């Protein structure tokens, strides 16, 4: 039997009676939206699962709190060779592993752990490769197997990564959750016990919080850990799994939780008026767009693409569909991302000019087209069907008759990537905060092949050269210039109607301070404090 006194601030009568002896213990209750799949970010793709492993693990490098800038993590410094192919990381000393039931670490984090963590995902012969299903989606999606040539231990505190090609976003990839560092010693210990799968269920890391217990589908508990980082201001961190947004809000009101994600848009106004709550908002790292298939008539003509850009009332759509949880987009990357080109001007909503452009392009009476809408809600688009109907009505005014097309989600995506559509809606949520992850992945020539993620099938040599050059340049200042220029070409050529970036909200109790929203949409608590 264990009884843990978690301290003040839970607001319940019974709690108050018992909390007395635990005076100053600071316990933050985060009402999370769902249950994690496991506690290993290498295996997962959802924010819900990343959230539960972020308190425990460190990466070689990490994103600055609340930003997309990469800063040192377990590696205190790194150097890149002249040719951009060899990355050498100097690991910091004093990075202690969490002790856990049965396992007492005997050493600090070192090069063996780094190699173990990458080889687990990379090499089939690693004894952990197949453990817990062995599906390393992000490692594969970020093309790590093609990119990595070798990972070598130079000494206990130096690791050398050699790449097959120059790839500037590589360092940002290493800050993504999948690149967390696990303990090889713990892995060996579990293998000897015959329970390797425990590595993903009872996590051991070097991070600011140590895992305590998980009651399935109910509560996850952590306690503060003093490792290489200074001890967090919080003593305990508790995730209370609460799937319904209205119930999370009720728990915020009664003080049963201190932070909640994903409020119902309909509750936002009421939340603003609550004296004990604070509402935070930030543009998500995403974009929703309508792609013109430039390989199909009449969208091969840039005048037609521009005309449609002018014919749709973006502001009205964002207001009606996002209900306060979205902002109109003018660039293909979100405003929170570095190299976002502020100077670009969006096409104005001007149907007369749109009609004129269509006439110039040889379509004075308009034309017929399809208009594909997602059958599901996505983070960047809460209601594609409604959006399609509004676009359809706007297009009808310039004589363009759009027929709304929907398929089952998997099929929809596949057909769009094949280029079966004329006008197709889709969107993207960023992975590593690097502009390459949008500008090259979604608009580069390589992705314009059938089945590729460039669903406009737009391949512009000048644009492509810029983003490829940026990919092969490690200097961030130079890369910023290249991407800014690429965004100018994008806007002129208009392969998309950039619709919106969704706005993400967080609700916090007034007792909470120091919380910053994460542009990647995950939730971090290491620097949070409570009054």
């Amino acid at each position, binding site marked *: 039997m264990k009884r843990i006194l978690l301290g003040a601030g839970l607001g319940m009568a*019974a709690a108050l009676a018992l909390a007395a002896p635990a005076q100053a213990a600071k316990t933050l209750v985060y009402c999370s939206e769902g249950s994690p799949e496991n506690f290993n970010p290498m295996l997962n793709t959802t924010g819900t699962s990343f959230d539960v492993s972020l308190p425990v693990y460190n990466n070689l490098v990490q994103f600055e709190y609340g930003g997309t800038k990469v800063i040192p993590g377990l590696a205190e410094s790194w150097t890149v060779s002249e040719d951009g192919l060899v990355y050498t990381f100097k690991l910091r000393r004093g990075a202690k592993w969490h002790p856990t039931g049965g396992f007492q670490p005997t050493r600090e984090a070192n090069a063996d752990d780094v190699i173990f963590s990458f080889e687990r995902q990379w090499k089939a012969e690693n004894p952990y490769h197949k453990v817990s299903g062995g599906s390393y*989606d992000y490692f*594969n999606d970020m093309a790590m197997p093609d990119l990595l040539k070798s990972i070598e231990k130079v000494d206990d505190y130096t690791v050398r990564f050699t790449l097959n090609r120059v790839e500037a976003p590589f360092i940002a990839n290493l800050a993504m959750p999948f690149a967390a560092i696990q303990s090889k010693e713990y892995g060996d210990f579990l293998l000897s016990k015959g329970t390797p799968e425990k590595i993903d269920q009872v996590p051991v890391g070097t991070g600011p919080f140590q895992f305590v217990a998980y*009651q399935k589908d109910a509560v996850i508990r952590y306690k503060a850990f003093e490792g290489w980082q200074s001890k967090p201001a919080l003593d305990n961190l508790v995730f209370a799994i609460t799937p*319904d947004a209205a119930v999370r809000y009720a728990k915020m009101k009664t003080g049963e939780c201190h932070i909640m994600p994903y409020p119902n848009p309909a509750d936002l106004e009421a939340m603003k008026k609550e004296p004990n709550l604070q509402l935070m908002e930030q543009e998500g790292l995403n974009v929703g767009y309508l792609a013109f298939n430039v390989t199909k008539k009449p969208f091969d003509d840039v005048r037609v693409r521009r005309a449609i850009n002018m014919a749709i009332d973006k502001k009205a759509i964002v207001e009606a569909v996002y209900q306060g949880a979205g902002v109109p987009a003018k660039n293909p990357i979100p405003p929170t991302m570095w190299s976002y080109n502020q100077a670009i001007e969006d096409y104005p909503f001007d149907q007369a000019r749109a009609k004129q452009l269509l006439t110039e392009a040889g379509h004075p009476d308009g034309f017929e087209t399809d208009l594909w809408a997602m059958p599901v809600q996505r983070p960047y688009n809460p209601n594609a069907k409604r959006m399609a109907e509004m676009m359809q009505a706007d297009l009808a005014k310039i004589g363009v008759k759009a027929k709304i097309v929907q398929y089952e*989600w998997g099929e929809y995506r596949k057909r769009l990537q094949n280029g079966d559509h004329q006008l197709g809606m889709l969107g993207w949520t960023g992975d590593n905060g690097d502009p390459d992850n949008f500008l090259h992945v979604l608009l580069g020539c390589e992705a314009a092949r059938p089945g590729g993620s460039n669903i406009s099938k737009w391949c512009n040599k000048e644009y492509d050269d810029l983003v490829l050059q940026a990919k092969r340049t490690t200097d961030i200042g130079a890369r910023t210039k290249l991407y800014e220029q690429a965004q100018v070409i994008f806007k002129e050529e208009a392969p998309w109607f950039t619709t919106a970036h969704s706005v993400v909200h967080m609700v916090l109790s007034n007792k909470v301070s120091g919380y910053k929203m994460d542009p990647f949409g995950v939730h971090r608590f290491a620097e949070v404090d409570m009054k």
Partner: protein
Amino acid sequence: MLRFILTRLGLVIPTFLGITFLTFLLIRLVPGDPIEVRVGERGIAPERLAELRREMGLDQPLWQQFLDYVGNVLSGDLGTSLVTRNSVLSEFATLFPATLELAFCAMLFSVLIGLPAGVLAAVKRGSWFDHGVMGLSLTGYSMPIFWWGLLLILFFSVQLGLTPVSGRLDLLYYIEPVTGFMLIDTLLVGETDAFWSALRHLILPTIVLGTIPLAVVARMTRSAMLEVLSEDYIRTARAKGLPQRRVIGLHALRNALIPVVTVIGLQVGTLLGGAILTETIFSWPGVGKWLIESINRRDYPALQGGVLLIATAVIAVNLIVDLLYGVFNPRIRHAR
């Protein structure tokens, strides 16, 4: 008696096969397989897709997958969850006590209130009490669970601060599960404060989950009582000068109970079905919430195994109910 039980058990086999087949088929009719729902905009390389499908056994023809599944189930293997990679049986065993505890409380709530209310309504037929009970039970029966749950939370938890909003136990306590029943586990370790906390957490979900069965039990009791009360033997009992309490309590109620017990048995299915919504609203870590997540993630083995195990529970309860008839009415025992 033994023959009766064996016949009933014999009937269970086709029921199980039917359930297995239907669950197997229905979840596969829902668009998107486990890999597709995970992939998102990023898409997946065809080779990787093929590899994952092979690993999950999804590359086999449907009939083959079904036969394999039935074969495994017959040898006691319900498979492993595609999402958590834990055995379906162990996940179910972890979560089921929470559902059972809630369902039991809801059943108790509905019988303790529904039965006397139905009897009284029948005895006072046509009175304001009768109309009141019937009106309320009709409302209760048509109550949308989600709305009702939120309403109770807003009133009792947020406005009045009387009950906790959701969860199973105050976060102050951490009780290692022994039986999985929070009310028992808290007492086992001697934590009376935690016991009261667990009880307070049970109040609202019990009411929400128990509302529909309560309405059904009240209505059924009333109509069964009315029927019995018009029987000759009741008139005889009254003519003999038996006091009203004895006529109702002994002669009438015992005979009226047979259809009521049937209905209570059938309500077990409703309770476990209703638990899916109730558990989601009250963040109750039971199998209902788990099944919803399994559907969303297209976790075929978890969903199939979960439904099969719940069906087993429902079938077992119905069998017990059938056996109970004999206790209430010896005629049935003889007839079989």
